[in-house]
């Protein structure tokens, strides 16, 4: 992977050398708050998993926050978002309530799926979030279908279809690419390349490691994006969204990012060094970079940021509290929602 930009810097450049426009004060602060909310949510989920309150698989998004937060900024009402199972960040970014997400993680009655979906299977029609899918690669045809529906209805909406570097090797991804370009469907394929598919480094699994090039044989344009810089993400997202809304078909954005935690909670992470993780955390952390810029440009004071930190902590603590005490679903729920 081309390494992300080193150290927090005020004037970032995209990989192709173009300058990335700065955020306004409001954008920086909003991005900071949302990314921090995702970070604190995931840290709390990790703790609660350790306490046995969350079962099964739990894939944390820590380190990748700039991707969803930057992409969400380009969406308009009616646009759709769909992803795989590392989905908590996407849900919070689309505006779903941390309480409902956390209660789903604990398998409780007021979780988004009434406790029947869990970490990997959550949805919100209201927020345009179409899951939350547990099968690697499966959301790619589904997201392409959501985009198909937009085109069928003749609206100007687009679908953000997220998948990882591991899913990028799935056959159904290319079946989808083919149809999306053939029918000019408004879908942005956002490949979150966090360098490891579970424990397998991309260099050990992929013949072409520049995933932005994976659409070339379908004539789908693609580019690599510094997925640790929320401004670069938003700039690339705007370009891709505009392309789709203009009826030109799909667009691929490869987000170069990194997950700090293991693949799931049960991952011993023996496949990479502690130094590698520390290097990214210290020099490329997406939240630190925003915080640094805010202070450097005096967009807000330390105190103001501390207030945000406290508010976020309170929000997450409330969510955890709620998810711990919410009752389990009624036994009668076993047989509901199989058919409608």
């Amino acid at each position, binding site marked *: 992977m081309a390494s992300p930009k080193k150290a927090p810097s005020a004037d970032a450049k995209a990989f192709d050398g173009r300058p990335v426009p700065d955020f306004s004060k409001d954008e920086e602060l909003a991005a900071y708050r949302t990314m921090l909310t995702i970070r604190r949510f995931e840290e709390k989920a990790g703790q609660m998993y350790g306490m046995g309150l969350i079962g099964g698989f739990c894939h944390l998004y820590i380190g990748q926050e700039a991707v969803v937060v930057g992409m969400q900024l380009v969406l308009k009402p009616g646009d759709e978002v769909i992803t795989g199972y590392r989905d908590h960040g996407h849900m919070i970014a689309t505006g779903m309530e941390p309480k409902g997400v956390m209660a789903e993680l604990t398998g409780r009655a007021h979780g988004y799926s009434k406790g029947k979906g869990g970490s990997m299977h959550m949805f919100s029609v209201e927020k345009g979030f179409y899951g939350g899918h547990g*099968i690697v690669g499966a959301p790619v045809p589904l997201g392409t279908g959501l985009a198909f529906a937009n085109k069928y209805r003749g609206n100007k909406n687009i679908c953000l279809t997220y998948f990882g570097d591991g899913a990028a090797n799935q056959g159904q991804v290319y079946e989808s690419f083919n149809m999306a370009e053939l029918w000019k469907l408004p879908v942005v394929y956002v490949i979150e390349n966090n360098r490891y598919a579970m424990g397998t480094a991309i260099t050990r699994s992929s013949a072409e490691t520049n995933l932005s090039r994976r659409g070339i044989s379908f004539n789908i344009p693609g580019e690599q994006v510094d997925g640790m810089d929320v401004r670069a993400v938003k700039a690339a997202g705007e370009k891709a969204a505009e392309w789709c809304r203009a009826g030109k078909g799909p667009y691929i954005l490869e987000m170069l990012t990194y997950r700090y935690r293991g693949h799931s909670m049960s991952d011993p992470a023996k496949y990479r060094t502690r130094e590698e993780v520390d290097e990214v955390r210290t020099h490329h952390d997406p939240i630190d970079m925003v915080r640094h810029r805010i202070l450097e440009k005096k967009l807000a004071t330390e105190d103001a940021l501390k207030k945000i930190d406290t508010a976020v902590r309170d929000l997450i603590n409330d969510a955890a509290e709620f998810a711990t005490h919410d009752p389990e679903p009624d036994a009668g729920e076993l047989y509901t*929602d199989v058919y*409608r």
Partner: protein
Amino acid sequence: MPTEVLMPALSPTMEKGNLSKWLKKEGDKVKSGDVIAEIETDKATMEVEAVDEGTLGKILVPEGTADVAVNTPIAVILSEGEDKGAIKDARPSPLEKAAESAPPAKAEKPAAPVPPQPKAPEAPAVHAASDPDIPEGTEMVTMTMREALRDAMAEEMRRDKDVFVMGEEVAEYQGAYKVTQGLLQQFGAGRVIDTPITEHGFAGLGVGAALAGLKPIVEFMTFNFAMQAMDQIVNSAAKTLYMSGGQMGCQIVFRGPNGAAARVAAQHSQDYSSWYSHIPGLKVIAPSNAADAKGLLKAAIRDPNPVIFLENEILYGHSSPVPKLDDFVLPIGKARIARPGNDVTIVAWSMGMSYALQAAEQLAKEGIDAEVIDLRTLKPMDVDSIIASVQKTGRAVTVEEGWKQSGVGAEIAAQIMELAFDYLDAPVARVTGKDVPMPYAANLEKLALPSVAEVIEAAKAVCYR
């Protein structure tokens, strides 16, 4: 020696076709590869090419002749030096033969014997008129199951603009089995969509469109190819409603021919009835006649859940009466008593109804009065109708083309055991496909499938006769 041109088969299941046009006339020179005639079935049109060089000596079947049996000589080609006089050595045309009304002469065997074309099993003589869901006195129109399916889709597409059909060759080609014939012309390319040969991808795309609220009809050229799409059908279509706590469902129909056609061997001859009926969240329908096909496909398209609609290639061309109603919709999950009886209950669906009804007729001659239930919907299964019948007869036989282990018959037998054990006078018998991949050879294929004889044998066995 003059060469006979025989009526060709367009598909493994074709038994007869129409000779629509002669492109050469008697006396014309022809060389190998020249198109000499056009033939058609309700499924396709094909050109007949000369296989030898020579002169078109005699046309045996005039153009415009309908229902010409496969392998009937339709013309004679004379080779260099031969004149028309040589033709008398050739077989008389069946038309002339019929006109002569002579006792059947032993047909002269052609020099290179052509193996007999496999005969597809007879169509079930299923008539839907006895259906309590059809109002008494309703006018019936005879149509093929293919036409009934097409009409069902067209009616629903007219009714609801969110309904569209996608699949391989459904649009410009007019359907690999012509089920979608004319839909492109009627509804346009935006709603009748040819896909690439990518079942996994387009099934998933259809599910995504359904999650967004559209109502796709996804045609699989055959259900054999849907195995590639199994993950999207089971994991995405069937489970999303449950996993989302009822927030997000998937109104979609997956349809296409299922089960054995004829002589297409193991990878193209499989019955998926039990596979799909295992899955909570799916509904599974398998009609045996045109009326059920129409009424149930319309119901499937309107149903808010994912529905697997299992058709049968052999049944596509079979005609039966369909109610002439503006909006004929049948209830999903309701079996129909196709033949009332008192001695033994035979449960079947789709192609299995063919074996069941023929067996019932022969059993009647031997004094066994069989009740035949056409299940029509496999999931949810109309267990009540089966149980009510078994309570009356005390004996049951199931018929299916699928394999025995974990088959639909196994489920029916278990239900009867659980709910009507005390009424049973004999163990339930299952007639199924044999536990082997489908062989290609005509004789072996026949052995691998259930037969009328096996159904009769099973029915007699449970009646201790």
